[in-house]
């Protein structure tokens, strides 16, 4: 896998580069701003771009805009956007029409190294990975109006959030320290409560949940 990284904080950038190299991922370019990212993508034709939302010179949403522009130019490119905070508005802009190969995660998820590497692989493969906070924010905001969502148990919510990250049943079971069978039961409950068509594919599952939350909005 060939990766480009856009991150202005050297400490963090070098940490991520070291982590990726240790795990056999090739980092072909490291850049510090939006225009640099677009140049690097055009020059190196990577499989995946890891992009910080806030980049110089404006430190607002430069990275997000550069990522969207990069996807417009190369629809096959996987983009993982990292941010210090989750804004559902950013998530929906990023996803746009083309949901394949998109990730939006809180920066601190990098700390959970295995899950982070898994997420990278899923995005590079054309999967969708959304931070569990995106789901949390969408759920919190709909509490007052959506009966179906309030009917979810706490554990079902946990499962829903991990599903949004595109994780497999096994990974969800590991993360929540339950058996894969229990996870399957929770997922069946969630899909029936939200009236969603059941499916086993991890990626399509994320999209179903996302579509539901977007329609509910």
């Amino acid at each position, binding site marked *: 896998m060939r990766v480009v990284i856009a991150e202005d904080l050297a400490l963090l950038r070098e*940490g991520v580069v070291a982590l990726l190299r240790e795990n056999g991922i090739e980092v072909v370019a490291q850049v510090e701003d939006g225009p640099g990212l677009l140049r690097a993508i055009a020059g190196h034709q990577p499989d995946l771009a890891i992009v910080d939302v806030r980049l110089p010179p404006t*430190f607002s949403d430069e990275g997000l805009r550069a990522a969207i522009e990069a996807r417009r130019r190369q629809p096959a490119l996987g983009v993982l956007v990292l941010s210090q905070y989750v804004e559902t508005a950013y998530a929906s802009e990023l996803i746009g029409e083309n949901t394949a190969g998109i990730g939006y995660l809180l920066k*601190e998820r990098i700390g959970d190294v295995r899950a982070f590497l898994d997420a990278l692989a899923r995005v590079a493969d054309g999967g969708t990975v959304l931070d569990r906070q995106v789901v949390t924010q969408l759920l919190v905001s*709909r509490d007052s109006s959506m009966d179906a969502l309030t009917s979810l148990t706490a554990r079902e919510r946990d499962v829903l959030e991990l599903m949004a990250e595109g994780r497999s049943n096994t990974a969800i079971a590991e993360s929540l320290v339950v058996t894969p069978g229990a996870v399957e039961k929770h997922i069946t409950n969630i899909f029936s409560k939200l009236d969603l068509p059941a499916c086993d594919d991890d990626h399509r599952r994320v999209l179903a949940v996302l579509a539901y939350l977007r329609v*509910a909005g």
Partner: protein
Amino acid sequence: MGERAHIADAPVSHPGAARRWMPTLAAGLTLREYARSLVRRLAALTAVLLTAIWALDGQGYFWPAWAWLGLIVPVLLDFTARWAWRHPRGAVRRVACVWALVSVAAVILLMTWLLTWLLAGVHEFWPGWALLGLATAGSAYSLIALHDRVLVARGRRALRARIDLLTRTRRQAVDAQAAELRRIERDLHDGAQARLVALTLQLGRAELRAGEESEVRRLIGDAQREAHLAIAELRDLARGIVPPLLADRGLLAAVESLAARYGLGTTVQAETHRSLAPAVESAAYFVIAEALTNTAKHAGAQRSWVHLGDEHRSLLVIVGDDGRGGADPAGSGLAGLRARVEALDGTLSVVSPQAQGTVVEVSIPCGW
């Protein structure tokens, strides 16, 4: 005042009155105006008669000039008295009366000198000292009478300058504070929080290398959890200072996201394109957030709306719903925000009659 003078003089120039040489009460004049008109005409008539007598009497020494002088005094007095009376009551009118008298006296002196020069050949300008005395007396009186007023006016000017200065510096302080808060928010995200993320990354790499050493893995896991808590706390702190979307994209984007988040079907309508100072933006944002929270919690509304617009040189924000109303303007969490709006010389009003919805309206000046 000028209008009254015009009305008093009107009968003289009025064509109907001019046809009859002598005015009548039937012309719609007040008694005072009638008397004034009569005196003027009698004076003029007397002057003409005396001049005619002089002419018929074989001319010689032109004595009617002295009669003219005598006749002109009441007319002058009447004229200056009316001028003095146009001034507002009190010290100013008193000063005007004094100057009216001084000017009548000066005119009499000057005319007397003119007559003595023309008729008796007195070349010396004898009224000089008298005129100087009159002017000095008038000035001295004015100075004493108006002294207080000059002081008050000066005090008022100083006060206005002070208010201007305080308004300006307060606004500067509020703006500087808002800019500083944005800098802190940015520093929290890009400084402390980013360093903690880098720390969790190093811990993660260490965990990968720790292999199956369960004690080491447990310690690293604990350290990571602590770091995650610290990151979450910093994020909440930063969000409380300035929501990231507001800092990144401005008020409209932040409000639209807020409206979508509450799931109330809130419509957002913006008719303002001005660029707002951070202090104004933040105050408006937090008012809208609080109002929408109240709507979601208490109103039971079918419809909810946010309107952003320009009103003169102010930003106008209206947040309304069609819920059950009856919100307490002092207790609905808006009291603290009112102080924030007032610090920007803005106003905040809450109208919430029972069963008729709630409308929160904020106006914040921004044309500075």
